[in-house]
């Protein structure tokens, strides 16, 4: 295992400490694994809390700041946070207008957030939760854990964050978060596995001519191991299930998000974005907004994911609204 770390046990806390030192105007660490916007709580503002396993940086702590999250609670690498963290974050950002939990749909995340929400309710804090489940690689079913939350999470955090920043109430922020969940679909591919520091070996290994399609963001294997293909073909294999699922149709305007998994450099992500843009144009779908970069990662995994969100005036306006976080900033 070759990583720029000290002891694996200290990785998450040391990394958060480094982040806080790098972003003193934006955020602070108020307890182990609890990162809070510097000016929290803001009276009368709905608080937005997200969290999940570490290893997906900049998600979530890199999205704490005006126009996006009020707090993030990162767990151990690829392990959901515990209720204590989530509760501490919820308390720290409650400004009296309630708190929205943005939860990626993994059994552990869902259960830990649920337990924290029960505890927060006992404190008299109004908590709602939205569960992001945008990964079309997983069959949706009432009888299973359902779909995973992946790239769409960033879009939910940005759009709900903009609404909360603008003063929307809890029901309205929740409604918008659900609208994003409803309209976003994702799928990912890995060209390499990744190594959980506490484990020291890659979670899976791929031969030189293989890729793993339909992966999640925790180093889990995907749905199929297939031959490595040129970027344009990879894009087709990711985009077609996404388009078919919602479905997206000719005439739709979308936000297209090409996400790097951590080890794939930007030069390749822009090749992927170009190919995606072409494919969408060929189906009469307009890319109205875009985002390209490593935002919802899986440690140093090589690969990418594609997320599409169907836009309308409301969502477009909230996407365009100013945001100032470590990893995403524009407008103001």
């Amino acid at each position, binding site marked *: 295992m070759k990583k720029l770390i000290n002891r694996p046990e200290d990785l998450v806390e040391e990394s958060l400490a480094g982040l806080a030192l790098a972003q003193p105007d934006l955020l602070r660490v108020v307890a182990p694994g609890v990162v809070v916007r510097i000016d929290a709580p803001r009276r009368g503002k709905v608080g937005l809390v997200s969290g999940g*396993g570490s290893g997906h940086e900049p998600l979530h702590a890199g999205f704490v700041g005006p126009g996006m999250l009020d707090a993030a609670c990162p*767990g*151990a*690498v*690829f*392990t*959901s*946070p*515990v*209720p*204590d963290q989530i509760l501490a974050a919820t308390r720290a950002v409650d400004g009296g207008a309630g708190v929205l939990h943005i939860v990626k749909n*993994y*059994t*552990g995340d869902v*259960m*830990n957030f*649920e*337990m924290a929400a029960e505890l927060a309710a006992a404190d008299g804090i109004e908590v709602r939760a939205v569960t992001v489940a945008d*990964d079309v*690689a*997983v*069959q949706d079913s009432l*009888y*299973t*854990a359902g779909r*995973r939350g992946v790239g769409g999470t960033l879009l939910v955090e940005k759009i709900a964050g903009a609404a909360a920043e603008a003063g929307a109430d809890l029901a309205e922020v929740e409604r918008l978060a659900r609208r994003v969940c409803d309209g976003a679909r994702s799928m990912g591919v890995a060209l390499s596995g990744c190594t*959980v520091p*506490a*484990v020291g*070996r890659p*979670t*899976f290994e791929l031969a030189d001519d293989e890729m793993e399609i339909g992966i*999640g963001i*925790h*180093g*889990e*294997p995907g*749905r199929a191991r297939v031959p490595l293909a040129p970027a344009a073909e990879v894009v087709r294999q990711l985009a077609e299930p996404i388009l078919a699922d919602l479905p997206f149709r000719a005439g739709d305007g979308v936000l297209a998000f090409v996400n790097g998994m951590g080890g794939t450099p930007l030069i390749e992500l822009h090749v992927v974005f170009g190919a995606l843009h072409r494919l969408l144009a060929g189906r009469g779908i307009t890319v109205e907004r875009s985002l390209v970069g490593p935002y919802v990662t899986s440690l140093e995994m090589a690969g990418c994911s594609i997320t599409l969100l169907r836009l309308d005036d409301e969502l477009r306006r909230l996407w365009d609204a100013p945001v100032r976080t470590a990893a995403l900033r524009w407008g103001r």
Partner: protein
Amino acid sequence: MTETPAGAVFGAAPTVGVPELADWLRRFAALVAAAKDELTALDAAIGDADHGVNLDRGLQAVVARLPELGAPGATPASLLKGVALTLISTVGGASGPLYGTFFLRLAGSLGDAPAVGPGELAAGLRAGLDGMAERGRTQLDDKTMVDALAPAIAALAAGLPAAWDEVLARSVAAGAAGRDRVTPLVARKGRASYLGERSAGHQDPGATSAVLLLEALRDALAPAGAPG
């Protein structure tokens, strides 16, 4: 902390008190520590390679708190509640809330008694299992820890009032059989479910750690079978 050797209180009418429960947890922690890499490897195949690491972290925290949790005045319920909260606060992932809820409900069913008999323990374990399945919205055959625990706890209740160590051994065997029975199945809960058909044929990490929990119980309560 009480240093009564495990099993010393058992005769024809065994009772389970704070020392036995503490011993159970300590043995569970030791078994998980020894199997940490195996559990993580199982999780790497169909999950995210952290089950061994997560549980081990949580159980080390539990072991560190046992002297305090088992201090004079402790009851089985207070001890197990402390164990539950420690697991919930330190394990994370799916198994933290699941094992945490298991111990929380078990604690809740034991009342204030300073020690309980086999029947009360079996009923408590059953309550814990129900809480776990509720928290996880889990059914049998979803291919989870529940598939090991459910037959084992059923065997325990059904076996009583036969010889205690016999019953405990049969419970472990039923748990292991449950774990193995679901290996060919497609997982329907937890991360393994994302793999769809590809999850079939892989042994479930949570069912594997659940069998360790049962082995630890056997070793703590049936001195004859205790390896140390």
